[in-house]
């Protein structure tokens, strides 16, 4: 009795070959009732909606990507860095752009003192403030989503800081190259270090302050401290001589490498502490 063939596709018209006797009469009657059918436009509309959904499966969306516990590949990391750029406002890019333009203008007009001011006094502060600015975005709400993401907060912050630092470097580079060209490799190296150490130090400290006390202290304190140092130095050297004095120190002072190392270490240490606090599961983002 039960020898219905297991077909995976039957023809449209009624297939009565497997019907029992007691079904046949009523089956015929029932089959005469035609079901409601959906008009062709609606069918077409539904199909048109479905096709793109199918198409996207070509590169399988991979809803369960492999667990990313290991290292991120470099290419992936740089893509993440690039994606962090979406989060920076247009205003920020404009400021960076303006600074770049003014750097080049200063170079072109050969105004050494202003160059110096820009490179060693302003840029490190800009670096610190940029750090806070970029982290603030997460602080304001995206942070929870970032923390819950596959990529994870640590990597996101690393990428963001890489971006900010990259921009800083871009700003500093023309000035450093100019000095290097003017004065030779050794001077360039010293200048680079003299720029890098305060930048890293200020950024790290800012990061740490941000993780403990939030936005305003993290910006206010470094600005205050750095500003005071500059004013102190300037008061000692007299304004005209300040630039020359510091430049001379950079080029000739034997303690520079040591101070730089201290600055770098402090910056990295504080920065790491701050990062750890920010990306741990116990930090409350709201």
């Amino acid at each position, binding site marked *: 009795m039960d020898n219905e063939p297991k077909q995976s596709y039957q023809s449209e018209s009624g297939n009565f070959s497997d019907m029992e006797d007691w079904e046949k009469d009523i089956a015929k*009657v029932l089959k005469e009732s035609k079901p409601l059918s*959906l008009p062709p436009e*609606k069918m077409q509309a539904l199909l048109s909606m479905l096709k793109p959904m199918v198409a996207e*499966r070509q590169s*399988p969306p991979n809803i369960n990507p492999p667990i990313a516990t290991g290292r991120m590949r470099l290419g992936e990391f740089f893509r993440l860095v690039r994606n962090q750029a979406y989060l920076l406002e247009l205003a920020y890019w404009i400021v960076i752009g303006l600074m770049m333009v003014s750097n080049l203008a200063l170079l072109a007009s050969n105004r050494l003192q202003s160059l110096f001011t820009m490179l060693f006094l302003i840029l490190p502060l800009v670096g610190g403030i940029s750090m806070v600015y970029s982290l603030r975005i997460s602080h304001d709400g995206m942070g929870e989503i970032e923390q819950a993401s596959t990529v994870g907060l640590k990597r996101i912050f690393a990428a963001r800081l890489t971006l900010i630092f990259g921009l800083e470097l871009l700003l500093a580079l023309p000035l450093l190259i100019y000095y290097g060209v003017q004065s030779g490799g050794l001077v360039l190296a010293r200048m680079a270090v003299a720029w890098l150490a305060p930048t890293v130090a200020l950024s790290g400290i800012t990061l740490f302050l941000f993780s403990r006390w939030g936005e305003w202290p993290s910006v206010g304190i470094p600005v205050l401290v750095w500003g005071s140092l500059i004013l102190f130095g300037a008061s000692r050297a007299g304004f005209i001589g300040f630039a020359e004095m510091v430049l001379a120190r950079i080029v000739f002072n034997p303690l520079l490498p040591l101070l730089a190392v201290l600055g770098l270490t402090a910056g990295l240490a504080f920065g790491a502490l701050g990062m750890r606090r920010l990306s741990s599961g116990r930090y409350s983002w709201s």
Partner: protein
Amino acid sequence: MDQLPDETLFARLMKGDEEAIEVLFARYAQSLYGFFWRLTSDPSLAEDLLQELFIRLVNYTGKLPQHFRVWLYTIARNLSYDALRSQGRQQIHQVDEFDDDLDEIQDVMQNGPEKTALRRADDERIRKSLDQLPDVQREVVVLRYYQELSLEEIAKVTKVPLGTAKSRLYHALELLRGMLTREEVKDG
């Protein structure tokens, strides 16, 4: 493409083959719409359910179903009942499951009362009669004669033993026969 079995087409669909969805759609969409309509008696709900079913289909990321039709109708059936339940329309009374022996059924039919010859019945009457059936019997009838599933497939979709599916069908047809002939007497 048209001649490929459902399972192959679905496998292709899962890999992003747009033609595969076209063929599967052409094969099943109208028929499924009719199915939803017959179970819910609500054309716009049927439309929603059809859309939902296909969306689930194209987004499916699980294991490839062994028997596509059965799987498809299982989902369709579940969707219908979910919808009916949320509208509070699923019937509360359950039909007594007769543990009929298959041979017994045959016996009755052979020795039973004369079958009244059934005349053509119109759509409206058939639909009304179907509506009066208990849910579990209606779905067997719909799956059998309108969706053209084999009894084995119906048993799998409704998750009952083959014998139960058969007896449900049998009793459903008895009821229908009674309803349809009664109507004719009234007309005549």
